[in-house]
């Protein structure tokens, strides 16, 4: 009996690792000019976990992949345009727009998405991009905070992300961010819910495998916000996390909570080296 169990385990181990996508060598070049790194050596902090990091784009069907290769085909780009309108629109008691202080989004926000979540000295804590947007809205514009995963937040994140497309994700995990990063790491490997699954159960142990109709990726957020064909709108990182935790039959965390900020920091850092792709297209 014991031998049988061992053989079974060996068989599983043998069949699991090698990632076989339909077109593992597919290349993503957006608008014929932005060359995306969709596959690269994993950051040193992933030693023993992953050798290579692979963008979620690689795991999608050909038709979905090609939608992301041209902004005219990418249904998420319309939200970037809306975000651009918001950028220049005065809102709140101070009579300011984002542009009043940050000027041209293409200059001021280039590279921002690649480094967030990031330690903020003034606040004395790790901040997500969404939190920075709301801080500016509330404290500097006298405007209302956007809902953390709302459409308005998602499209502002989309606008800002697009300014970093093609740049490598480069999230700092050391210094004052180290504690929160460690918390996020622990969450990534914790099995939750009645199904007792961790992020790693699906996105580390089983990427490349199908779970029902879905092709499991490594669960990176370099493509966020993502446009999902399923519901024809943008999804933010915390929105996605919430769905994935819920699917383990667990009580989820709240978007914007310290828990999800820690998880975002850790998950973002796993994608270090991949290109910022947001706005990407997913099913």
């Amino acid at each position: 009996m014991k031998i049988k169990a061992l053989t079974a385990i060996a068989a599983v181990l043998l069949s699991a690792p090698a990632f076989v996508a339909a077109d593992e060598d597919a290349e993503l070049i957006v608008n014929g000019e932005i060359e995306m790194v969709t596959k690269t050596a994993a950051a040193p902090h992933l030693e023993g976990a992953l050798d290579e990091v692979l963008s979620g784009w690689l795991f999608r069907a050909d038709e979905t992949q090609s939608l992301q290769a041209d902004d005219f085909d990418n249904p998420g780009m319309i939200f970037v345009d809306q975000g651009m309108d918001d950028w220049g629109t005065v809102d709140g008691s101070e009579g300011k727009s984002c542009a009043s202080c940050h000027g041209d989004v293409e200059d001021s926000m280039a590279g921002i998405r690649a480094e967030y979540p990031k330690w903020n000295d003034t606040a004395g804590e790790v901040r997500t991009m969404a939190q920075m947007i709301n801080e500016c809205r509330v404290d500097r514009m006298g405007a209302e905070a956007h809902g953390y995963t709302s459409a308005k937040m998602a499209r502002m994140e989309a606008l800002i992300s697009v300014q970093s497309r093609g740049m490598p994700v480069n999230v700092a995990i050391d210094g004052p961010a180290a504690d929160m990063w460690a918390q996020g790491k622990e969450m990534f490997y914790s099995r939750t819910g009645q199904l007792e699954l961790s992020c790693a159960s699906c996105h580390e142990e089983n990427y490349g495998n199908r779970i029902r109709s879905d092709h499991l990726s490594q669960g990176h957020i370099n493509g966020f916000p993502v446009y999902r064909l399923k519901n024809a709108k943008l999804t933010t990182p915390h929105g996605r996390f919430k769905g994935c935790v819920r699917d383990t039959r667990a009580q989820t965390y709240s978007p914007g909570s310290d828990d999800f900020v820690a998880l975002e920091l850790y998950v973002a850092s796993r994608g270090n080296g991949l290109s910022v792709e947001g706005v990407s297209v997913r099913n």
Partner: protein
Amino acid sequence: MRLTTITLAATLTVAGVATAGTVAPGDVAFDEYGAVEMSLSGAAGDAVNGEKIMVTKSKGNCVACHAVSKLSYAPFHGEVGPQLDWAGDTWSQAELRGILANAKKTFEGSVMPAFYKVDGFVRPGKGYTGKAADGPLDPLLSAQDIEDVIAFLMTLKEE
């Protein structure tokens, strides 16, 4: 193997008559390899119903992770777990019962969920709502569901 099965069948009949009761999730007796000898429901399994449970998303949803040729009529078989085409040859009923009740007792650290377990979870939710569970959890499958699935798995043999 054959011997075990026959002995087991005999035990089952006896157990069925003697207890005719359901073993509670907390009382399941796993042996050192993770197998469970005694029927969980005290009754024999119904393979036809077992097959249904395996393809039903809200029940076993086994095909989400396992491919089974005999169930190829159901769409989207997963690849997270091994193909189950010969489960009835590979495993005894007692072993299958153990794998279903709590696969982690057979395969350490398995990602296969425990289908007959009601406590010891981190942040248990109320089904797939994302909200906290508001009372004791039911096992993912009932004792009889599990016996039914075992009965179906035992039909998965090389011709």
